[in-house]
């Protein structure tokens, strides 16, 4: 049963996943991945619900969720910027790009802009080293970046979002 208030998550969305995996040993990470795919992040009521259905102590559920970088506990912006900080990108100037993003949007790693449009996340390596430095925004990869290119891409996305909102 889920309540209808705006601050609680609709836990019924997770029923199918839990029916399938709750009794399979070793499935906690898989359950968390599916939950994040459903809710976009891992709200604490969802984590508690997973604990009570699977019988895994809530401390372990939270412990596992916080251990892995894939899991997040706050909603992300419309555009999730994954800025590659792999070795090749580092050598080719990714720190400069991080600074450019901060100068343009005012966000650091893990933060979201006030308008809810952009979230910045530094990632270890996207594996497109030959295109370094690289960032990925919502599944689209942008390679061979310069601060100028980054500013242009962000401005374009912002424009698109504003136009969408106006329509």
């Amino acid at each position, binding site marked *: 049963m889920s309540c209808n208030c705006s601050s609680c998550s609709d836990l019924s969305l997770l029923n199918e996943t839990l029916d399938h995996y709750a009794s399979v040993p070793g499935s906690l*990470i898989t359950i968390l991945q599916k939950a994040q795919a459903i809710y976009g992040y891992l709200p604490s009521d969802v984590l508690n619900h997973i604990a009570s259905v699977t019988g895994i102590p809530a401390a372990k559920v939270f412990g596992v969720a916080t251990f892995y970088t894939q899991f997040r506990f706050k909603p992300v912006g419309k555009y999730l910027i994954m800025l590659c*900080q792999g070795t090749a990108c580092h050598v080719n100037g990714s720190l400069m790009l991080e600074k450019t993003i901060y100068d343009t949007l005012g966000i650091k790693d893990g933060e979201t802009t006030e308008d809810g449009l952009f979230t910045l996340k530094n990632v*270890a*390596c996207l*594996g497109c080293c030959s*295109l370094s430095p690289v960032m990925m925004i919502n599944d689209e990869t942008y390679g061979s970046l*310069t601060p100028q290119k980054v500013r242009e891409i962000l401005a374009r996305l912002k424009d698109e979002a504003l136009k969408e909102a106006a329509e």
Partner: protein
Amino acid sequence: MIKIKVGQGSCGISAGASKVYAALEKQIIDDNLDVQLSVTGCIGMCYLEPIVDIYDENSLLKRLVRVKESDVQSISDYVKTGDITHIENLIVSDEDKHFLDSQTRIALRGCGVINPDEIDDYISNGGYTALRKALVEMTPESVIDEIKVAGLAGRGGAGFPTWFKWNAARNSQGEEKYLICNADEGDPGAFMDRAVIESNPHNLIEGMLIGAYAIGAKEAIIYVRAEYPLAIIRLERAIEQANEKGIVGENIFGSGFSCSFRIKAGAGAFVCGEETALIESLEGSRGMPRLKPPFPAQSGYWHKPSNINNVETFANVSWIIENGGEEFAKLGTEDSKGTKVFAITGKIKRGGLVEIPMGKKLSDVIFDIGGGMKTDKDYKCVQLGGPSGGCIPADMQDTVIDYKKLSATGAIMGSGGMVVMDESTCMVGMARFFLDFTAKESCGKCTHCRIGTKRLLEILDRICKGEGKEGDIELLEDTCNEIKTGALCGLGQTAPNPVLTTIKYYRDEYEAHIIEKRCPAGECIDLVNFIINPDKCVGCSLCSRKCPAGAISGEIKKTFSIDSEKCIKCGQCIDACRFGAVEKR
């Protein structure tokens, strides 16, 4: 019939290969061409993506590089007329061809040739014959013997003999055993395993099945990094197709041997590349390494005998069974047999995947194959082995690629990440970069690693900011040695390597930062000033108009200057200047 293959690994797709594919698909229909269009994996020449190969039946006619959507008309014209002038500007140069021609491909064979989504394509290229040979003609013991003769060692980094692990798992008591593939390729700057999975997933499955037969496992698990979505999709499809063909599942090839397959997506933790941490993660826990012994061969996944190998290790297995261990052992050196795949990136001209026999020199890879630097600066060093490895300086470029020879330098063979740096890379900054990584990724189990890496990072941070103190180098060394002896797992024990090797070879750079408050490479932003070179400045005012801090002033057609008090070192002036007049000093 003409076949056109578009290389679509992650790199290729990022460079626009799927758009080129879609445009070609449309063009073929529009022009009513008698052409078979297909997907292939990573060809390995990442710097030339997107790549389109035109085949006449099975022989490569033309390889086209850096293809754009707008080029499809020309490709169609070429196919229609055979007139090469249409595509002349796209054809790969002889120099670039040399990049592939000088390689020996065993683990990467089939990559960029076969269609990773079609099991029949793999089979018609000789796929699964080694598995049949192993299951029908060989005993598990003779498979292990063959791997022993080959001298295959773990390609994940440690270089432990594969046959020994297989043998230990085989001899362990218990009916229930597991074979696990470590595809949690976490080293930043390494993408060999991703390329193998995306380009030739069946080769991995075949190697794993042979391994499972050898140790007596009925279940095989592939632990793949979550950041590799395409690899997971291709692997899922490959397993499904192998299941349909009866190559995976019950009673394979009527041999009585059965083995099921399953994929587990990781959730982003570097430490899970360590085998016991990986097992913890497979069991749904925090990925924290276990104390060894017991080794996984005795007590691994769910405390059952388990064997874990890296993707590249498995990718060699079917070739060895097919061609014999002796043939494999002919390649390489006394200590290191066979080939090794490297992902070569950084300031290199020709970056991509390189597979060469062990025993070649570093300079063969960097200069002969990689073409040297892409910048006008000099070659400085190469970083091997990611956060567990180290930097090998330019004057040691003749070092032979072999497990022992590379370890002797303080670096390691590693999994194959090879990041090339030029004079503009600061070595203190490089050490800081890796420690930032390991401090974040330390699982926290051992105090020395958890706190030690953090302390190392703080000291390096200080040095990079110009706040280094006398004695910092010795403090770094002491802390490094503490971590080496106090950490439980291999990743913790090797975490100080980037610091130790940079101190060993670039002590003068550390001293310049600490004593002179100067960054010789001009990379540490707190230690450099932006200035305008009067010999190059033409007085166009572009930089002063771009400067967000109002720090640049001057008169048109005269030399401009930067007020270092106001300068925020954002670098926009460097991007803006068309004459290279803004310099960091």
